[in-house]
C-alpha cells in the first residue's frame, strides 16, 4: 500500500523568505502523480502544483516549485518570496496512474508566514 509522510507538522517563516516543505512517499508503482494542495482557513482545498512521475523536469507554478527525487521517493515544495496569503495547511498527495483518482494524502504541514 502507498503511504505519504510529511515530517514537519508546523513551520513558520518571515514574509518574503523562501521555505521548503518536505514530503516522502512509499510505493512500488512506476507511473503515478504527486500533488501539493493548500488549505487556508476557508477550508477549501486548492491545487498548488502537480508532478507526473514519468517527467524528469520539476514542475513550477510562479513562486511554487518542486524538487522531485523519484529514486529517493521525495517530493518537496519550495515557496519563494513567501506572502502572508500563503499561510495555510499544505498537503502532499499521491495518486497511482489509472486508479480512478484515488488520492493518498499526507497529514499536512501548517505553514505560518509572519509579517
Amino acid at each position, binding site marked *: 500500500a502507498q503511504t505519504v509522510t510529511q515530517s514537519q507538522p508546523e513551520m513558520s517563516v518571515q514574509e518574503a523568505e523562501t521555505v521548503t516543505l518536505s514530503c516522502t512517499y512509499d510505493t512500488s508503482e512506476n507511473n503515478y502523480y504527486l500533488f501539493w494542495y493548500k488549505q487556508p482557513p476557508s477550508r477549501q*482545498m486548492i*491545487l498548488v502544483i502537480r508532478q507526473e512521475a514519468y517527467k524528469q523536469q520539476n514542475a513550477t507554478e510562479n513562486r511554487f516549485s518542486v524538487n522531485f527525487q523519484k529514486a529517493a521517493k521525495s517530493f518537496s515544495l519550495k515557496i519563494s518570496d513567501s506572502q502572508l496569503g500563503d499561510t495555510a495547511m499544505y498537503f502532499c498527495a499521491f495518486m497511482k496512474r489509472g486508479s480512478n*483518482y484515488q488520492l493518498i494524502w499526507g497529514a499536512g504541514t501548517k505553514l505560518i508566514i509572519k509579517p
Partner: protein
Amino acid sequence: EAGVAQSPRYKIIEKRQSVAFWCNPISGHATLYWYQQILGQGPKLLIQFQNNGVVDDSQLPKDRFSAERLKGVDSTLKIQPAKLEDSAVYLCASSILLRGNSPLHFGNGTRLTVT
C-alpha cells in the same frame, strides 16, 4: 465558472441524531467525491461517483453513512445515527473526468461537531 457548492457550512448535533450534507459540483463535472477530514489529518475518501453510479465506496461506514447522486448532478451525504468520532470536516470535490490530468475542485466543506 461557479465553484463546488456545499451546505451547510457548519452543523452541530448530538450523538445518535441524523444529519445531511449537500453538494452541487461544477457544471459538467461527471465525477463527484465525498471526503472526511478529521482535525490534524489529511482527507479520507468516503465515496466516489461517476455520473450517478458509485465507483468506490469501500471506506464508507455503510451501517451509518449513505450517499446518493440522483440524476448525476448534486449529491447528498447522510449520517444516521451520528457518533462522536464523526466530528470532522466533510469535503465535496468534483472533476470533469476520472483521470489524473483532470484536476479536483473542492468545495469549502461542512464542519460537523457531534456532542
